[in-house]
């Protein structure tokens, strides 16, 4: 005789057992989605923070000469105002001459025009200069003032170490090249290339640094390899200038 009650109990146990793996799988999938969502939000936040920091490098420490910002972005560098403070004791007021914003400005390749600072008219004040710089019409490109000083580049280097952001690496390599620190420029452009091998300018700085460091043959070899990989026009013209001996 069949014991129906016992059989029903066993059947219930069987059903619970058979559904357990599915319930477990659903819970696991839910947690996986949850963790992915959490991770993606976290990554986005950290990326936006890095971007903000990158944008804030010049803006954060810029002097009162900062031009009004517009949506169209093109950076115009202005010399660091820190050293001007030292002149302020001897000269009551110093006006920094402001050149009109060049169209194709390479921000960090521009050197600080120190002589101009020394020839500024004495009557003008520093604070008076920004209106002259700021674009009045919408057609004019957005000007971004940048304050480059040693503490700045150190903080950027520190941030580069923390974030391994290729753009920061390029920034630093460019800075050092512009300042004649070719070994540092070489190092940072090399790091940048290892992080992102598609940045043309980083390769150019790397090769230029090699030339400056006297390793011309290695520079040429690298340049040949890079041209064969990327077909870069700027790399070709650089190779041409190196081979002709016109590169300085």
């Amino acid at each position, binding site marked *: 005789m*069949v014991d*129906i009650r016992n*059989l*029903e*109990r*066993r*059947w219930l*146990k*069987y*059903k619970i057992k058979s559904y357990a793996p599915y319930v477990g799988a659903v819970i696991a999938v839910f947690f996986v989605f949850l963790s992915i969502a959490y991770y993606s939000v976290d990554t986005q936040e950290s990326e936006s923070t890095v971007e903000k920091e990158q944008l804030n490098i010049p803006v954060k420490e810029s002097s009162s000469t900062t031009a009004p910002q517009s949506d169209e972005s093109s950076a115009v560098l202005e010399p660091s105002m820190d050293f001007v403070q030292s002149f302020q004791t001897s000269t009551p007021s110093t006006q920094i001459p402001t050149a009109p914003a060049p169209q194709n400005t390479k921000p960090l390749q521009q050197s600080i025009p120190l002589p101009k600072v020394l020839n500024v008219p004495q009557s003008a004040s520093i604070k008076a200069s920004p209106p002259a710089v700021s674009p009045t019409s919408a057609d004019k490109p957005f000007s971004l003032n940048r304050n480059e000083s040693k503490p700045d580049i150190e903080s950027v280097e520190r941030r580069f170490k923390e974030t391994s952001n290729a753009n920061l690496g390029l920034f630093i390599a460019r800075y050092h090249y512009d300042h004649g620190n070719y070994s540092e420029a070489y190092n940072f452009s090399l790091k940048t290339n290892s992080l992102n091998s598609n940045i043309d300018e980083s390769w150019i700085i790397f090769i230029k640094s090699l030339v400056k460091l006297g390793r011309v043959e290695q520079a040429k070899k690298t340049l040949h390899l890079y041209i064969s990989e990327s077909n870069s026009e700027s790399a070709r013209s650089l190779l041409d200038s190196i081979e002709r001996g016109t590169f300085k």
Partner: protein
Amino acid sequence: MESSLFSKPRDLFLDVVNPRDYVQIDSVSHMYQSLKNSVQKPLKMILLFGKPGTGKSMLLHKLHHDLSKHQKVLMFDIPIVDEDDFLRVLAQRIFGHAPREVMTLTRFLEIAEAVSYADVPIVLLDEAQLYSSSLMEKIRLISDARAIKFVITLHKTDKEDVIAKEHFQTRIWESIELQNASADELKVYVQKKLLKANCFDVANMFNDKNMKLITSLTKGNYRDTNKLLFSLFSLYYWYEENHPTLIKYNALKSKWIEMAAIHTGLIRG
């Protein structure tokens, strides 16, 4: 007392081998026909093999039932493992000769030679894996001498491939493998069996979903299906007596199929 709708179907699925209960399914019918054809050929030994519950014994009984009307056929559904007894029973029942002395193979072949039939007598050996190697060798020699034609059934297990056995590797003249049924075949099997016994209402309760579940539980094995359905109709019988309102007559309850499977040990509860 036996007025229950489910008592007759329950008894139909008792696991007994009766050639009258043979149900014609396409694949089994094909197998049976090829077996019959093989028996007609001048072959000496025919092997019927498959996993337990695939219908080997039923096919052998059916063959015995059909052939015994026309020729000398002997069925050994319970193996006689003693060699002397085996030869003595064969000599007596096939050739009608019961010598008092010890029956040796040579003596048996002499008797077989002395008695001649128009058709070679057929001996059907079920569960041949239970015979000893020595007796199997004698069976082979008897068949080689064309004294008797043997049809034997063997279990095919996963561990042991019977075809590879020494006796059968070079001695098999024809082999037929039986396999488990598909869901469709099993449905035909169950419904034909029920309809044959005029259980029309119960036969209509089997839908495709039910049959898929039954096939997945029994893996298409006929013996397991019989056991499961016997148990299932026992449950229905109980519910019909105690909770008749729970029974739905348009389909079988999956829950009760699973309960029957737990009861028969096909799944663990």
